[in-house]
């Protein structure tokens, strides 16, 4: 049985390799948010962390796409880590926009 997702929000830079998470919110400008949204990183999407660092680039995997983010950008993206076992389950918990 899937445990309820803990109500914590972590900057993307604080996640670990292999973690799955959902974008909860960001403190990015509208323009930057629009760019990330167009690239597929919006507030409904679930991703897997390939590399996270507060000093170097963060690499995440969205479906079949890998995105590299600078640490300055990544630390402004707050995420909700997923504990459920199945890929895609966290994204489904989010209300669709």
């Amino acid at each position, binding site marked *: 049985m899937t445990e309820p997702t803990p109500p914590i929000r972590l900057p993307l830079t604080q996640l670990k390799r292999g973690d799955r998470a959902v974008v909860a919110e960001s403190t990015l400008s509208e323009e930057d948010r629009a760019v990330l949204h167009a690239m597929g990183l919006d507030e409904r999407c679930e991703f897997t962390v390939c590399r996270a660092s507060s000093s170097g680039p963060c690499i995440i995997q969205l*479906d079949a796409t890998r995105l590299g983010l600078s640490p300055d950008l990544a630390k402004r993206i707050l995420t909700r880590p997923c504990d459920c076992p199945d890929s895609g389950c966290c994204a489904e918990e989010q209300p669709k926009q």
Partner: protein
Amino acid sequence: MSNPPLGARASASAPSSAFAPTRVAMVGNPNVGKTSLFNRLCGVRAKTANFPGSTVEARVGSCVGNGSEIELVDLPGVYAIDLELPESKLCRDCLAGRLEGCMPDALLVVIDATNLARGLRLFRSVANAARPVAVALTMTDLARARGLSIDPARLSVALGVPCVAANGRDGTGIEPLVAAILAAREVPPQVVAASVASNWIDDTVTSIVGGPNSLGAENDRLTDRLDAAFTHPVLGGLVFLAAMATIFFAIFRLAELPMELIESGCAWLQSTLAANLPAGAISSLLTDGVIGGVSGTIVFLPQICLLFFLLALLEDTGYLARAAFVMDRIMCRFGLPGQAFVPLLSSHACALPGIMSTRLIPDPRDRLATILVAPFVSCSARVGVYVLLVSILFPESGFLAGLAFAGCYALGAIAALATAAIFRRTILKGKSRPMVLELPPYRLPDLRGALLSTYDRAVVFLKNAGSVILAICVVMWWISAYPKAETPAEAVAIEARAVELDARGDSEGAEALRAEAETVTSRAQQQQSIAGRLGGAVQPVFAPLGLDDRLTVAVLTSFLAREVFRSTITVLVGQGDSEDDTRVAGELAQATRTDGTRLFDPATTTSLLVFYVLAMQCLPTLAVTARETGSWKWAALQFGWMSAVAYLLAWLAYVLVHALGTGLGGGA
């Protein structure tokens, strides 16, 4: 395996159609294989198109389908067309018909099969009932490797437009793709309209691939390991340095032979024309102005081709996107993005390919800053001047000479980074595009695509050399050659002595005297010409740097290309030019001013060296800056800023060395 030319296949087998869209715009996300498809469809029948007011370019080409010519416009890759980014604006303008000569009759939307949802989002934003649309589904091999199965026929039904799986790298699906473009007109507009309903993307992805999640994650382990290595703070830096050293070596060494061949070819052409044309203005214009000037630019063609070929290969492997992150840590401190490192490194060979390679940089401000500072980096044309002046400064100490030589490179690099930091905080102030890049999958590079990309860049470069640069060279020739000076009495007397020696059978001595007479005549011409008179008038400006009128003329003529400094100064000082740097440096070191003091005293030589490190003395570079930025305004700023920095620091160097009274110059 490569396919036969498209035109032959298409005209032989495609069904007859009463309608053929004459212009098709290709739209797609970055890294979806759109340009590979374009290259496969058009081959060398393509050119880069710059549109007024846009710093982003598109490529236009043609192919033949069903006996009709189709014009293809390869628009830049975009994630969405409504973003406030130059490439999105170009796409919007093109689709709205706001660009002259770019109103498409139909669209070809290129969608990555491994990222269907994102491709469909773009499809939804560009497809409308008024214009036929076809879809090319790419990366189906990668999708299969990830366990995804997408049926183009089902997707075609879901989208309501023709959809074909195609691969630009190996040419599969190209013929059906052309047929699909031609068949796009058959789609009733209401089908397209119905396909843009809400939740349509999720529903379509679910029905086509069974859900939005990727499968086959096992395949990502190798990518994970490579990413960990290539973006590691230490290992990633070492890999990057190795990759750049290889490129640097190739630009410098592998280009040597073809560069020598171009030089020899131009020299042969010059001497052949000079021998066969009657002596006079036309001969001088063709040999000295046109060939002499343009050859100084096209000699860099091999370096440019090598650079772009290697960069295209490297970009195709997926490595370059990772490298940008490695360098971003360092470059961002100076307001430059990680991608700026490649253009700056390339500029060590020549600023022309360096500036042209700034197209790798997505943010317009970042790109502009990189273009403006790239010529500060010491290029190969400066090496000759460095060697000459350093040899005059330190004739006895190879160690100090080497140190000074390395110092020149360091000074150029520091000036470039400092200028970037200043510009990004002042005239180019503003937030950069956030450093977020899609990291394409690692794969073997597409040799054909790299060659076509190189060909395209070479054509652009040669067109520039044959237009703007040619015009500049002719003007510079004219101000150096006119008005014509009368042959000085001194030269006439030397010539008479040469005739006497000839009569006595001393042909060697006569030849030496004739060379001396020619030097005297050239010096008189230099002094009498517009450029020479300008030098005399401008000399007071350069006096604080220790320059007399001869050095001022040499500096002024160097604004055409800095490598002419050596030949100009040897003519003006009255020494014969020679391949032997040490001999020329030794002779110049003995040259004196009218008051009997050394012309190349330590303070003057140091200030000249600093000036040549920092000054913008390359008209072809200014022409390329104007072309790449779309405005001569930026070229003027580059020239003004670099000249001002060069003047100020050269003056400081002069004052310092003068005050210190060092034992530079071999203690002479």
